[in-house]
Structure formats: C-alpha cells, structure tokens
C-alpha cells in the first residue's frame, strides 16, 4: 500500500444556511444543519472539512463567510471552501473569515492565469483545483462547470496538467456520474486518470469503507470526500477509521 496517509474529508454542501445533498450534482435536498454536522464530524475524527456554497456560482458570490467565522471558532482542523470564487479579493475574504484552502472550478476554466495569481499570493498549498469530470464516451472524460450544467469540451487529463503547471497544490476530483449514487468510487475514472504530482482527493460515490480500500490499494490517491454516508447517518468517521486500521491503511 501507499505511504501517504489517507485523509477522510466530510464534504458539506450548503444552500441558504442548510446542509443539502444532491444526486449527480442535481436535485438538492435539505438534510440538516451544517454547523451541527461539521462539529460532529470534527469531534468524530475528520481530518479536514470541505464546504461548498451550492448557489454561489449562480449569484457570483460566496455566502459562507459568517458560517466559516463561527465554525472555525470550534474546529481546529483544515477547512477548504468552494463556490463562486472569481477574484483575488473573493479569496482574501474567505481566508480572512477562516478558510485554510480555497477550491475553484469555473473561474480557473475561464481564466487559467487566475491559478498563478492566487498561488503567488497565498501559496500553492492553499489553492485547490476543483475538477468535475463527466464520462463522455469510451476512454474520454471531460470537465464540466457550474455544478455539472456546463460542458467545456476540455479533456480531463490535459486539464489536470494545466492546473498543476499553473500552480494548484491539490486536486479534488468529483465524478459527476457517481456523485450521490452510492455506487462506490468511479474506478474507471481512477484508471483513466494520469498520476498527479500534487495530492489527489476523490469525491463522489462513497457508500461503505471498503470503497476506500478498493481505491487506494490501486491508485495514488491521498484522500476521499464523504457526504451522503455521513449526512444520512449511515455510518461515522470513526467506523471508517476502525475499518482502515484493521486493513492497514495509513490514517491519522
């Protein structure tokens, strides 16, 4: 098995102060209170937290500032924020309110130079490339934006090379086809992907702890995002860690 430690990252999608869950990035359903959920996951041993503002892209603005301010008073682990980040001042605002990393999709696709601008100021370790990949045809995945609504025609591996060259410090890769489906991680996507030089976080489809073992025993992945499984209380972080330890996965 790989020597990197696997991070378990609860992903919380937030809309109008509610914790929501989608299926294939669509059909948002309210599943709880994001503050209570985040605090619970922290106390249960989460390695990081990922917060996404689900409507930010629509309004060109991230609304999670106040939420970040209050949750980071209570949790002392890294926090990544995504949704609607378009400018250096958007980024600065979120870092000021408590973000440790920011993840960007749409604005990077629109203007890849924005990646370098951000990493020159904030350091590449705090700039995350958020990538949404969609299966197009045999041996071709493309990236999409606007929560899966917009096709870009850009092939996945070439886009990931650009992200790395321009200076992201991490990639969070979401399989749009598997997201919210409880089918396990998209292993075909994992095998299609070239090995990344920066840490890679897989997102979409987690349904049971075995999924992590399947993924990291074959592919060079540093962490996984988990949402549905935790939000619907089908299991907990500590259960996954117990499974991981029993199966010799490197975890905190």
């Amino acid at each position, binding site marked *: 098995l*790989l*020597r*990197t*430690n696997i*991070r378990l990252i609860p992903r919380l999608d937030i809309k109008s102060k509610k914790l929501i869950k989608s299926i294939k990035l669509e059909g948002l359903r309210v599943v709880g209170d994001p503050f209570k959920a985040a605090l619970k996951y922290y106390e249960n041993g989460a*390695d990081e937290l990922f917060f996404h503002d689900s409507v930010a892209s629509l309004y060109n603005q991230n609304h999670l500032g106040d939420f970040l*301010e209050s949750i*980071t*008073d209570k949790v*002392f*682990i*890294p926090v990544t924020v995504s949704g609607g980040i378009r400018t250096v001042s958007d980024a*600065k*605002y979120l*870092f*000021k*309110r*408590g973000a*440790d*990393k920011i993840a960007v999709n749409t604005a990077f696709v629109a203007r890849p130079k924005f990646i370098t601008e951000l*990493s*020159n*100021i*904030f*350091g*590449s*370790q*705090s700039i995350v490339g958020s990538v949404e990949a969609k299966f197009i045809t045999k041996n071709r995945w493309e990236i999409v934006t606007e929560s899966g609504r917009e096709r870009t025609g850009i092939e996945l591996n070439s886009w990931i090379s650009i992200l790395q060259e321009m200076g992201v*410090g*991490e990639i969070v890769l979401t399989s749009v086809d598997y997201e919210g489906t409880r089918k396990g991680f998209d292993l075909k996507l994992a095998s299609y992907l070239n090995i*990344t*030089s*920066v*840490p*890679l976080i897989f997102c979409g489809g987690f349904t049971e702890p075995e999924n992590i073992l399947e993924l990291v025993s074959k592919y*060079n992945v*540093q*962490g996984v995002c988990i949402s549905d499984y935790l939000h619907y209380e089908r299991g907990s972080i500590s259960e996954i860690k117990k499974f991981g330890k029993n199966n010799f996965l490197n*975890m*905190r």
Partner: protein
Amino acid sequence: MIKVGVIDYGAGNQKNIFRAIKSIGCEPILAKKTVDLKRTDFIILPGMGSFSHAVMHLKKSGLFEGIIDAANDGKKILGICLGLQLFFENGDESGANVGLGLLKGQTVPLADYCDFENGYKIPIMGWYNVQWKITDNGSEFSKTINSISRESMYFAHSYGVVPNDKYIEIGVLNYFNSPIVAAIKKKNILGAQFHPEKSGIVGLKFLKAFLS
C-alpha cells in the same frame, strides 16, 4: 493575560491562529508594525502565504527589522510553516529571496532537494507522525512533546528548511523515505513545519507548551 503578537503578512491569514491562541486562554494581538510587538510576551509568525509576498510585506511595514530585534532581545518566537522558513537566510518560493537570517541555512523546494521514493506527492499535505528528538527531559516543553509524541500533526508545504546546524532539529518527518525537518529549536526560537493551529487538540497542546 499572556499577550501573543501575530505577525501580519497582508495575506489575510491570521484568523485561525488567533482562534487557537484564544482557545488556550491567551490574548492574540495583530502585529502590523514594530511598535505592536512591544506590548507582547510572545511572537508568532503564522504559516500562510508565499515567501516572497511575506518578505515584501515585512520590509514595507518595518516588521522585518522589528522581528530580528525582538529575537535578538530574547523574546520567544514561534514560526509556523512559512514562518519557520522565514527564520532562515534564503527562500526561493516565487523567485530568490532573503529571509530574516535568524538561523543559518536554506529554504528549498522539497521536490528538487529530496530523494523521495516513487509515488510521492508535493505539497506534503495531510497528517503525519513526527519523530521527536528532545534531549532536555526536565522542561515543561519536553514533557508536553513526550506526551504527544505518538500523535499526528497536519502538514501542508512544498518547501522545507535545511539548517546548517543539525542540532537545532528537534523533530523530523519521514516522507517517502526521505527525512524532512518538522521542528527546530534554538534558544528562544521555535519552529514548526506542521500547523499546530490545525492539528486538533494535539496541536493546541503544542501551542500551549510554547506559550508557557
């Protein structure tokens, strides 16, 4: 109440170190100018931003000399991640740069400098164990380190420090079979390559040990 000066690099990054300091019962003070350091008991150089951006900002605000003077006066200073790297002579994130020079040595890009085994990723990002080398077993600081020595700390960095004096290295991270400096200590200067403010309860214990 113990007052802790947190150095401002202008990248808007002090919030989380502020929260961590408050949570252990101390008072954080944002240090924008050298005069702000006068009323502090400790100084922390936080760990976010790029080397060149931070140096540029410190020179502009005059804190560059202010920090050096405070360190030479014996004030206890903790550098976290980038803060640790700034203690040394040179750093080359985004071009060649001159650091504070409080410690002899370099800041280097890990991917070029280290001989990692295959499969490594840079930045080093995640929770890793630190191998501690503490010799003065009597102090409160070393007692705390011993009590947390089996726990993981959170790392997020692409650059690392190479001190000229090996004896100042008090903690090492073994990453893909290559040793990375995780912590240094020399007199009143302490440095952590990991983020204590982001390493849960264990990280807060480390901070508390520094601030006592």
